[in-house]
């Protein structure tokens, strides 16, 4: 599945552009992270991408075919931020909601839908939570349930809104690893918003950095996440340190204490 955004533009008011002439292409089984300051338009971009907001101009295409509102497509699933749930649905009910696109208009989940839902819970390693009420779960558990719900629709592309926000260290790692597995083992493409350049560097193939007035930078993560770009887009003096000398195959972002 190949996703393209062609000349996407969006603004809430005339004098402030949020997104302008944004182009990107994402191939099957690739991971895209979106970075940017608070309020710069990361969530706006996701909303335009999924079709909740309408582009002012430009469009999104799947496999070369123009689509209005891709989250309505069967191949696309959306994972919202795991805020608290008011209604005490069980995890199984919640995941079964992901089957809705495959169900008839008046239908409720069939035995098959429920089996698929249980499989998805197992895939996320939370089968033991199937009977637990979502209103009594921790943030990490709930986020896993949401991802399982996305998987239940058997998607080729999953779009996530800050899945690791508000999670502790261990749960952040858990979520990122599960997502990485999905991309590598199942060939599912992922697009996710994040506040952590470190996370983008760790798991993504491509990175989109959004800046003010519709400015953006899109490319392979290795080429995009440079000291220069971080300094420019986040206005924080940063050094990227290669940890190879310490025997760790990763890079670390170090924020220098003096800003600008």
């Amino acid at each position, binding site marked *: 599945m190949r996703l393209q955004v062609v000349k996407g533009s969006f603004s809430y008011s005339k004098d402030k552009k949020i997104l302008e002439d944004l182009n990107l292409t994402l191939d099957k089984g690739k991971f895209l992270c979106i970075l940017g300051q608070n309020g710069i338009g990361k969530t706006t971009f996701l909303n335009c991408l*999924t*079709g*909740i907001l309408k582009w002012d101009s430009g469009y999104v295409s799947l496999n070369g075919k123009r689509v209005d*509102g891709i*989250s*309505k497509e*069967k191949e696309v*699933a*959306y994972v*919202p931020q795991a805020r608290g749930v*008011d*209604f*005490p*649905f*069980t995890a*199984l*009910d919640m995941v079964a*909601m*992901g089957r*809705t*696109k495959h*169900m008839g208009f*008046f*239908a*409720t*989940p069939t*035995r098959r839908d*429920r*089996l698929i839902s249980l499989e998805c819970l197992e895939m996320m390693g939370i089968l033991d939570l*199937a*009977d637990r*009420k979502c*209103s*009594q779960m921790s943030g990490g558990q709930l986020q896993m349930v949401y991802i399982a719900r996305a998987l239940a*629709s058997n998607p080729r592309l999953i779009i996530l809104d800050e899945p690791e926000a508000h999670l502790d260290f261990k749960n952040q790692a858990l979520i990122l690893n599960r997502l990485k597995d999905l991309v590598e083992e199942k060939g599912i493409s992922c697009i996710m918003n994040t506040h952590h350049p470190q996370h983008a560097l760790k798991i993504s193939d491509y990175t989109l950095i959004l800046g003010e007035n519709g400015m953006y930078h899109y490319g392979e993560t290795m080429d995009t996440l440079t000291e220069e770009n971080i300094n420019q887009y986040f206005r924080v003096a940063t050094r990227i340190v290669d940890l190879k000398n310490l025997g760790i195959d990763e890079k670390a972002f170090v924020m220098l204490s003096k800003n600008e």
Partner: protein
Amino acid sequence: MLMKEERKAFMSIGIGAMLLLIMAFVSLFLGRYMVSPGMVFQVIYHEITGRTLASVEQNIIWDIRLPRIMLNILVGGGLAAAGVAFQGVFQNRLVSPDILGVSNGAGFGAALGLLLGRLPPFGIAMMAFCGGLLSVGITYAISKIRKGKSTLTLVLSGIVVSSFFGAMISYIKLVADTDSVLPSITYWLMGSFAGASYANVFFCATFIGLGLLVLHLLCWKINILSMGDKEAYALGIDPEKNRMAIVIACTFITATCVMATGIIGWIGMIMPNLCREFISANNKYLLPAATIGGGLFMVVIDLVARISTAAEIPIGILTAVIGAPIFIIVFFKQEGEMN
């Protein structure tokens, strides 16, 4: 492959239905005129076989108590089911037909119909339905003016709209003819089952039944809508259209209940929350459970209203007196679970 919660739901619905039958039967022989249980069987047997007993017992049980109990079940169940669906589609556990202003809106429509007089058949019912739809529309519109969804905004705009239509009802009472129209409006608005008849039961069964059927068919959509519009959209359903269909069905049910028995509060908020906490949040089970629970609650309350004092207590007073403490208990239990 039945999960723990589903077994619990099936059992609760079964037990609820049995309790409802038992309480309905008890209500047939309890009252200020006591009838022995055996006599109740005799009367029912004779009616079914077509040999009507021309006795006081026959009159009390078959012509007065039985339609009244049937109406209890229909109205109680209808209001509870409408509450379940309203709470789901507005993603808000504090709303109900009366809080959203639907009850007062429907009441206003019906009162206006009575005032105008000489309407075609079902004219008053149509007025009640339109009044209910208008009020829930206004409530929802007001709550949308303020950006950023909050639970309280919807409740507050509901209260505003509700009291507006309450005032309009008062105005109609003021200008109504004191000899003919005013007594009928006042008497009906107090919320009473005393006027139950088979014609009434038939009217309610048809329209509440239709509404319940629609809600049941759309029960999975109510689940999805309770996740919020953005998620509903991403899960593949059109939130506005589906919500509209469900709100119309709920308003249909509420307007019918208001037509039949006046404005009865509380039940549409308490029953959904009780059943959601103790049985299931999945509307496939929650809707039938709350319908049965609402019917049972209403049968019991109406029984108390009939037998506790010499003069019958208006039903609205009792639902509030019993409903408010239940609500507080549930509310605190929920808070405790969260911490």
